[in-house]
């Protein structure tokens, strides 16, 4: 199933699409308000972008410095080239401690690596502790948004889900009540889990510390009650110095949800007394992408989700239509780098309106990259046959003026006398649209006449 088919599926429930669209736009508006209230907002964005450029151009020394500092802090540092290797490392740490139940706070990297499935196949019970992630986990789904994992769920459905899994009263869909029920259910897990996995928002090369941001406090509660802390991060999450956190933390939550900062921004430098702390650095194609002038910039992403909330396609097609761990515009430029064939449809899931680029806090040229990916994908032959034939035909017509004239006249004649040639279900532009009436003549006829007069 490609993006268009999956979007079709999501679009069957029109009221839900309208609600999804509106809810995400509301978050985009909150982001705007927060941005406008922050002095130097544009200066912050360009500064953040420059810092990230510096990181990408010095990633080798920064990674070495980060590793050395982290080791000095008493942290074990691991390196993984592939998702499989990352999963093996995490599993071996869990195994070493002889644990079967673990808690995990939000980490898009572990989604990218499909860690949950890997661990559960080996008898490890992983509980996602972010409320939104727990909801989709109970439902057996992946998150549909990197910041708001269950943004596609209605509260009545969550009430039903909790009734089934947590034994809450049937029919109760009050968010306050359901959150309290989840709090109680997850407290038990926090109190009994000896291993906690977290993601990483920023890794500071200068100090070897990692910063994890949450609103719920689930990362902190998990880590502080566990004997083992495993932090999983992509190698691009490094920033040079602690003072650069000031720039990124000012941008992150404002861009994500319009909050001035997340409730908790925790700086883990050394493990607590007696705790075993690990950092797993994951590559999975990032080091290769670093070579590409066209696509390198996508590695600057800080995973705020602003491009999702503003995207007219994402808002109306839902996160699952992107069939990848990171959906939305940023996901559509990241995924083809990992597997171009499987994700050849994603760069086309955009209107190229450029709104994603306008809101990106680190100024990634998202819509330009979407356009560039389309060119690469067509060149490599990964587009569908109908698109290929159509494009070839178009090239032929547009590059031959006489053919173009005849084609125009023919099309106008057919549109006038046999509209069904265009107005049929095989024409995707006809879906949910009326086609315009065909003009009487071509522009060049009109021009000739009016020049004469």
């Amino acid at each position, binding site marked *: 199933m490609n993006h268009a088919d999956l979007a079709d599926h999501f679009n069957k429930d029109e009221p839900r699409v309208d609600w999804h669209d509106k809810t995400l736009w509301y978050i985009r508006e909150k982001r705007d308000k927060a941005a406008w209230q922050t002095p130097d907002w544009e200066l912050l964005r360009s500064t953040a972008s420059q810092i990230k450029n*510096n990181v990408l151009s010095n990633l080798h020394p920064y990674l070495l410095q980060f590793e050395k500092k982290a080791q000095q802090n008493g942290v074990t540092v691991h*390196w993984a080239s592939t998702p499989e290797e990352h999963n093996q490392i995490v599993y071996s740490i869990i195994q070493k401690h002889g644990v079967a139940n673990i808690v995990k706070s939000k980490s898009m990297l572990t989604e990218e690596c499909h860690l949950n499935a890997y661990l559960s196949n080996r008898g490890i019970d992983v509980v996602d502790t972010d409320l939104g992630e727990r909801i989709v986990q109970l439902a057996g789904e992946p998150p549909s948004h990197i910041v708001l994992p269950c943004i596609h769920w209605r509260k009545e459905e969550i009430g039903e889900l909790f009734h089934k899994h947590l034994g809450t009263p049937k029919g109760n869909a009050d968010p306050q009540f359901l959150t309290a029920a989840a*709090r109680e259910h997850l407290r038990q897990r926090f109190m009994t889990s000896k291993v906690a996995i977290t993601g990483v928002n920023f890794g500071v090369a200068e100090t070897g510390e990692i910063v994890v941001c949450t609103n719920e406090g689930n990362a902190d509660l998990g880590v502080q009650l566990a004997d083992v802390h495993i932090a999983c991060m992509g190698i691009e999450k490094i920033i040079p110095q602690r*003072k650069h956190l000031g*720039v990124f*933390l000012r941008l992150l939550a404002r861009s994500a949800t319009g*909050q001035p900062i997340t*409730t908790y921004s925790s700086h883990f430098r050394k493990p*607590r007394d007696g705790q075993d702390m690990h950092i797993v650095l994951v590559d999975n194609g990032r080091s290769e992408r670093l070579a590409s002038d066209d696509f390198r910039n996508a590695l600057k992403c800080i995973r705020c989700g602003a491009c999702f909330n503003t995207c007219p396609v994402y808002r109306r097609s839902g996160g699952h239509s992107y069939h990848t761990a990171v959906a939305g515009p940023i996901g559509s430029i990241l995924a083809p780098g990992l597997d171009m064939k499987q994700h050849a449809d994603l760069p086309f899931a955009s209107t190229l309106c450029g709104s994603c680029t306008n809101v990106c806090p680190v100024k990634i040229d998202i819509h330009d990259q979407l356009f560039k990916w389309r060119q690469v994908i067509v060149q490599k032959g990964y587009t569908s046959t109908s698109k290929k034939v159509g494009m070839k035909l178009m090239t032929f017509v547009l590059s031959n003026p006489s053919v173009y004239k005849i084609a125009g006249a023919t099309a106008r004649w057919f549109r006038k006398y046999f509209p069904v040639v265009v107005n049929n279900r095989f024409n995707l532009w006809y879906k949910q649209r009326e086609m315009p009436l065909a003009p009487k003549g071509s522009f060049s006829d009109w021009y000739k006449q009016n020049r004469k007069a």
Partner: protein
Amino acid sequence: MSSREKILATVQANQPNDSPLPELHFSVGEDNHVDRFKTVLSGIGGNVVEVADRNQIHEFIKLNFSESKRIVNTIPDLAAVSGIHAFENDPHRLEDVDLAILQGHFGVAENGAIWITEDRMGDRALPFITQHLALVIDKKEIVPNLHEAYFRLDTSAHQFGTFIAGPSKTADIEQSLVLGAHGPKSLLVFLIGQ
């Protein structure tokens, strides 16, 4: 070749030419930082209480938390509230704490956050496991923005430190804001000074 060597070699081969780090120069604003701190913190669900001295904190807690079964205090000046707690490096024993009272280092006006480090927490788990959290800071210790905050943290040797901005919260169910997701259900901030 190990994965570490492979990754580092590929990164070294592929990283582009050096792009210099930018200077960090940002405006501080002419706001009254204390007022701004109070407004922003209230806006994100924190309760701000201004007090002249520590005695007033004592009185406030006696009055408002008389029903609390377990109060844990780590501030020597407030020993009269509940004594100084002895920690045993077993965070699980803190499960039934109703209120924790901790001394923060400083507040940040632009986002209502308070910086606190491990040495002020008693146990790293305490600020997160307690049902309600009270942080104490001096009015003089409010910086305008995060850049100033990190300027202060430049040489900080903290092992674990966190910015806390308001109570634990979630809006994962239909964007309805609920306070008390996993951590404290409320945050009380005592601002000391004139």
